[in-house]
C-alpha cells in the first residue's frame, strides 16, 4: 500500500525540478522587469532635476544640483561630520527608547493585570497621551530647559504611549482558556509568566516596540529641528540657515535611510521571534 503510494514520487521529481527552475527563472525575470519599471520614475525625476539646474531653470539657491547633493553626502561622511551628528541622534533615540521601554512595560503590565491599577492610572495616562509630543515640547523646554533631558523626555513620551497600550492590551487579550489550562496543570507563577503570559502577549508587545521605535525616530527629528545644537536634525537646520540646501537634502536622504533601516531590522527580528507562531498554523 505504502509502496504504491511512494512510487510515483521519484518519477515526478525530474519534471518537478524542471518546473521549479522554470518558475525560478520566471520569478527572476519578473523581478528584473519590476525593478526596471520602478527605476523609471526616479530616473526621470533625476534627469529633470539635473536639466533644471544645468540650464538654470531654477536658481541653485533654491534647488541644488543632484550631483552636488550626492558629493555633499560623501563629503559629510568622509569628514566625519555626518557620523558625529548621526551618532548623537541615535544615542538620544536609544536613551529615550530604553526609558520608554522600562516605563511603558511596567505601566502596561500593571494596568493589564490589575483593574485597580487601571482605574487609578489609565485616565491620567490617557490625558497625557492625548496631547501629541509636539504639544508637550514648549512646556518641557520651560520646565527642564533646552538640554538633553528635554529631548530624551520627548522621545520617551513618544515611544512609551504605543508600548504601554500594546502591553496592556496584549495581557488583557490572553485567551481565558490558556490561563485555565495553566491552572489545571498547576503552573507556578514563573511557569505562568514564561509559558503563557509572555508568549501570548509577545506579538502585541512587539507591535508596541515597533510603533514605539518608529515614533521615537520621528520625534527625534522633530525635536532636533526645533531645539538642538547638535544631531542630524540640527545639521539640517544649520544647512537651511546658511542656504546650503545640498546639506539639507543630504540629511533628508540620511534620515530616510535610517528610517528604512529601523523598519527592516524590526521586520527581521519580528519574523525571527514570531516564527513559532506561524508554524503552528
Amino acid at each position, binding site marked *: 500500500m505504502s509502496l504504491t503510494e511512494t512510487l510515483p514520487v521519484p518519477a515526478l521529481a525530474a519534471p518537478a525540478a524542471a518546473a521549479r527552475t522554470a518558475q525560478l527563472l520566471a520569478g527572476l525575470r519578473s523581478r528584473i522587469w519590476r525593478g526596471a519599471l*520602478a527605476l523609471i*520614475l526616479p530616473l526621470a525625476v533625476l534627469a529633470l532635476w539635473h536639466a533644471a539646474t544645468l540650464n538654470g531653470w531654477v536658481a541653485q539657491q533654491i534647488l541644488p544640483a543632484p550631483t552636488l547633493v550626492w558629493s555633499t553626502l560623501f563629503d559629510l561622511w568622509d569628514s566625519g561630520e555626518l557620523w558625529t551628528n548621526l551618532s548623537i541622534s541615535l544615542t538620544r533615540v536609544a536613551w529615550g527608547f530604553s526609558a520608554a521601554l522600562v516605563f511603558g512595560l511596567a505601566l502596561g503590565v500593571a494596568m493589564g493585570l490589575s483593574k485597580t491599577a487601571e*482605574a487609578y492610572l489609565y485616565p*491620567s495616562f490617557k490625558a497625557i497621551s492625548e496631547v501629541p509630543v509636539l504639544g508637550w515640547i*514648549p512646556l518641557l523646554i520651560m520646565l527642564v530647559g533646552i538640554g538633553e533631558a528635554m529631548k530624551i523626555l520627548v522621545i520617551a513620551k513618544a515611544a512609551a504611549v504605543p508600548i504601554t497600550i500594546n502591553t496592556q492590551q496584549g495581557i488583557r487579550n490572553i485567551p481565558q482558556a490558556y490561563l485555565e489550562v495553566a491552572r489545571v496543570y498547576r503552573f507556578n507563577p514563573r511557569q505562568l509568566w514564561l509559558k503563557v503570559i509572555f508568549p501570548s502577549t509577545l506579538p502585541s508587545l512587539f507591535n508596541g516596540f515597533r510603533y514605539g521605535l518608529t515614533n521615537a525616530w520621528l520625534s527625534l527629528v*522633530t525635536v532636533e*529641528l526645533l531645539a538642538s545644537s547638535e544631531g542630524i536634525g540640527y545639521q539640517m537646520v544649520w544647512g537651511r540657515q546658511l542656504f546650503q540646501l545640498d546639506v*539639507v537634502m543630504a540629511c533628508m536622504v540620511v534620515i530616510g535611510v535610517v528610517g*528604512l533601516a529601523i523598519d527592516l531590522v524590526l521586520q527581521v527580528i519580528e519574523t525571527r521571534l514570531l516564527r513559532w507562531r506561524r508554524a503552528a498554523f
Partner: protein
Amino acid sequence: MSNPTIQTVPAIVPDEVPATPSDSRPGILQRGLQFLWRRDWRGFVLPLLALALWWGVTHFKLANTEVLAPPGAVLIEGLHQVFNGGFVWDLTASISRDLAGFTIGGLAGFALGTLLGTSRLAELLVAPSFNAVKQIALFAWIPMISVWFGMGEPAKVVFISLAAFYPVAINTFEGIRSVNRDYAEVARVYGFSRLQLWRRVILPAASPQIFTGLHLALIYAWLATIGAEYFLKSGYGVGNSMIDGREHFNMGSVLFGLVVVGSIGALLNQLAVRLEHRALKWRNRSA
C-alpha cells in the same frame, strides 16, 4: 391616602410593570448624587496629587516661580486668553489651515491611491518611489518647504497636505486592492458600466479602509498644523501662541495651548469616529 380604593392602584402598578429604577422617580438632586456616587473617581487621584504638588512647590517657593507659575495664575492666564486674548483668532487660523491642508492632501492622496489601486502598471512605476520617499520623516521636509514656499500660509498648507496625503494614498490603494474579485465578477455578469462598477462595487467595498486613511489623515493634519506653526513662525495660530508663550516665559499661555491642542485633537478624533460609523452603517445592516 384617605381613600383606600386609590391606594390599591399604585400598589398594583409596580407588580405589572417590572420595577425599574426610573419608576421611583427620584428628584434631580438625588439622581445627581447617584451619578456622582457611581462614577469612578479613582482616576482623579493622580491628577489631584500632581496639582497639590504643583501648588505646594510654587506656594513655598521651592522652584523658581518666574518659570513655574502657580496653578491659580495659569488658570487666570487661560481665562484671559479665552475672553480677551487673541485666542479666537489663533484657533480659527489653525483650524482653517488644518482643514485646507486636510482637503488638499486627502484629495491628492485619494487620487494617487485610486490610480495605483486600479492600474498594475502605475503601481509598478510609482509605488517603489512612493515608499522610498515616505521613509523621510515628515518634519524633515520643513526646511525644504520653507525654502520653496516661504514662511507664510502656502508653506503651512503644503506641509499639512503632505501629512494628510500619505495615509489616504496608502489606505485607498490597499482598500481598492483588497476588493474581492468575485464582486467585480458579479458586476461584469450584470453588465455594469465602468461608472456603476466604481460607484456600486469598488468604492463601497473599499470604503472602510478609505475611511481609516481619512481618519489617520485628520489626526496627522492636526499634528502637522501645530508643527507648521512652530517652525514657520508667521501669522496666527495655536502653535504660534505656544511658542510665543515659551519665549516670554508665559507658562499660562503654554499650558493653555497644550490643553487646546489635546482637546482639538480628541475632538477631531471623535468626529472622525462618528462620521465613520455613520457612513459605514449600511455595512453592519447587510451583515
